[in-house]
């Protein structure tokens, strides 16, 4: 038996009438809340609250472990114990690299009394990796995972889409941006979700320059708790200014997006735990070797007087243009390996509050850490060279601009 097209449609209608229950979808409170989080008028206040919760949880959780327990463990027990039992003693080069380089007071070399200043692989290296960075990273990835699994992230992408179009990106760019606040390495990979070469270049350049990673945020929370808000504001402002300029200057397209926004749902404990474990494990595979290697290299450079020589050579730029002490050259070198390590080193240098803000901003923007650098290289050496050229210009101008602001305010 052969049916005509009309007969087929009639048959389909008949079957569907008998087998399918047609109903009216009743709008629920969950749907209505979903709409509220996407509309700018209501969605922006909600996004403000989510960010507040994010940051507040980050501070409380990381502070609980770092200030509450790890500072005490490392400064009062681990460091004195190592200073007692490690062979060599103060002044010995191997002891300096592994435990404590010490510092000069009235011409006498004295032992450090905390792990921020000792700068040994076994003291500062372990303290930074386990005592400071681990709680910060767990807190960050826990909240990020919860936001993803509840279904808030796609809504944030929709909400911020219009703003990100002004800088040549679209709503999906919020994913690498927020991931970058945890670690720049997966964020560079995540920038592949952007469709065009222009978008990917803008995204990678902005990530490499303006987004501090979770480890760095954790150390900043320890070193500059009162001014961290200003530093972040300055960095995020730079993110949009540079993005806008790159969007105007670079050729290429910035297409629209079509996002499937899932309904809100309760996150499942097993999924959250698994994602958190994978992310923290991935981060530590990258971070710990570089933190320890960073301690070794910086200590060797100090012992060989290369840091002092570089500090004198670069003094006109550092002190004259950026307005920071020439001693910041050491942390800037350490920042090639790990930016969290570099910020920790800054805390041991005597400087004013404003110089500290400028130094932290410089460490953040001046070069991606080596792990991010390798990821950028994987994406293509031409893009990497382009990013570095933009970066050099931005560091010089944006760092200098901050010094100019302090001069105008009369505090530099």
């Amino acid at each position: 038996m052969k049916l005509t097209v009309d007969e087929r449609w009639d048959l389909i209608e008949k079957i569907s009438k008998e087998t399918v229950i047609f109903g009216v979808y009743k709008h629920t409170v969950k749907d209505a809340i979903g709409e509220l989080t996407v509309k700018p008028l209501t969605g922006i206040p909600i996004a403000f609250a989510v960010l507040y919760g994010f940051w507040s949880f980050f501070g409380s959780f990381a502070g609980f472990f770092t200030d509450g327990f790890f500072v005490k463990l490392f400064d009062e027990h681990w460091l004195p114990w190592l200073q007692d039992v490690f062979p060599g003693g103060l002044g010995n080069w191997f002891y300096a690299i592994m435990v404590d380089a010490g510092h000069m007071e009235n011409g006498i070399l004295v032992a450090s009394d905390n792990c921020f200043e000792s700068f040994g692989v076994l003291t500062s290296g372990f303290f930074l990796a386990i005592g400071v960075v681990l709680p910060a990273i767990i807190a960050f990835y826990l909240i990020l995972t919860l936001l993803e699994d509840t279904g808030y992230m796609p809504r944030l992408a929709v909400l911020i889409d219009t703003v990100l179009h002004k800088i040549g990106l679209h709503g999906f760019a919020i994913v690498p941006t927020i991931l970058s606040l945890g670690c720049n390495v997966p964020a560079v990979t995540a920038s592949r979700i952007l469709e065009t070469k222009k978008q990917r270049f803008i995204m990678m350049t902005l990530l490499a320059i303006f987004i501090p990673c979770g480890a760095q945020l954790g150390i900043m929370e320890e070193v500059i708790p009162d001014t961290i808000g200003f530093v972040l504001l300055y960095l995020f402002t730079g993110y949009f200014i540079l993005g806008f300029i790159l969007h105007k200057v670079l050729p290429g397209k910035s297409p629209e997006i079509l996002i499937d926004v899932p309904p809100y749902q309760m996150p499942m404990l097993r999924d959250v735990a698994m994602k958190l474990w994978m992310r923290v494990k991935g981060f530590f595979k990258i971070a710990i070797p570089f933190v320890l290697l960073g301690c070794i290299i910086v200590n060797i450079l100090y012992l060989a007087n290369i840091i002092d020589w570089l500090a004198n050579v670069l003094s006109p730029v550092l002190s004259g243009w950026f307005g920071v002490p020439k001693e910041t050259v050491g942390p800037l070198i350490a920042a090639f390996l790990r930016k969290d390590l570099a910020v920790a080193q800054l805390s041991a240098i005597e400087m004013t509050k404003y110089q500290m803000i400028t130094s932290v901003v410089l460490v953040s923007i001046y070069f991606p850490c080596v792990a991010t650098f390798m990821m950028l290289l994987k994406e293509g050496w031409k893009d990497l060279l382009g990013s570095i050229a933009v970066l050099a210009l931005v560091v010089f101008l944006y760092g200098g601009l901050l010094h100019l602001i302090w001069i105008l305010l009369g505090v530099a």
Partner: protein
Amino acid sequence: MNEKYNLGSVYFGILGVVALVCGIADLVVVAGGDSFSWGILEIPSDPFRGGWGGLIILFAGLFYLYSIKNFSEIHHFSKAVMGSILVWVIAGCDILAMITESIPGGEEGGWFNTLEGFLGTYAPPYAPAIFLLPFSLVIIYHLHKRGGTNADMEE
């Protein structure tokens, strides 16, 4: 049914005004620079908790006030739910901060806090969001009366 919703709109109208006043007070105190204490109430002057947090409490108040226009209608009702969620975020963060402060012994103390120190952390004064918290929980009763949040089909 209508009476229940009328009562709800009056309740959240009052709560909205109170939240709005608390939010504005938070912002005024931050602008002034010194924290404000009155009995068991304390308004922090730091830009994060007072400024950013105050702004969110102000938004919560606005959400409540927008909801009373037609409280029985689902889109307006959901604004009251959102207002409560904003209060829960701020109050929850304040409570979490208290918990994380109360357990460690501090710089001079031992590993853990003394019982006295532990209990002392939870003593007043409290920030405005903590006072708003119990009143904001009334939305759970309304959600329950409405029959939950899950989508369903009707023939």
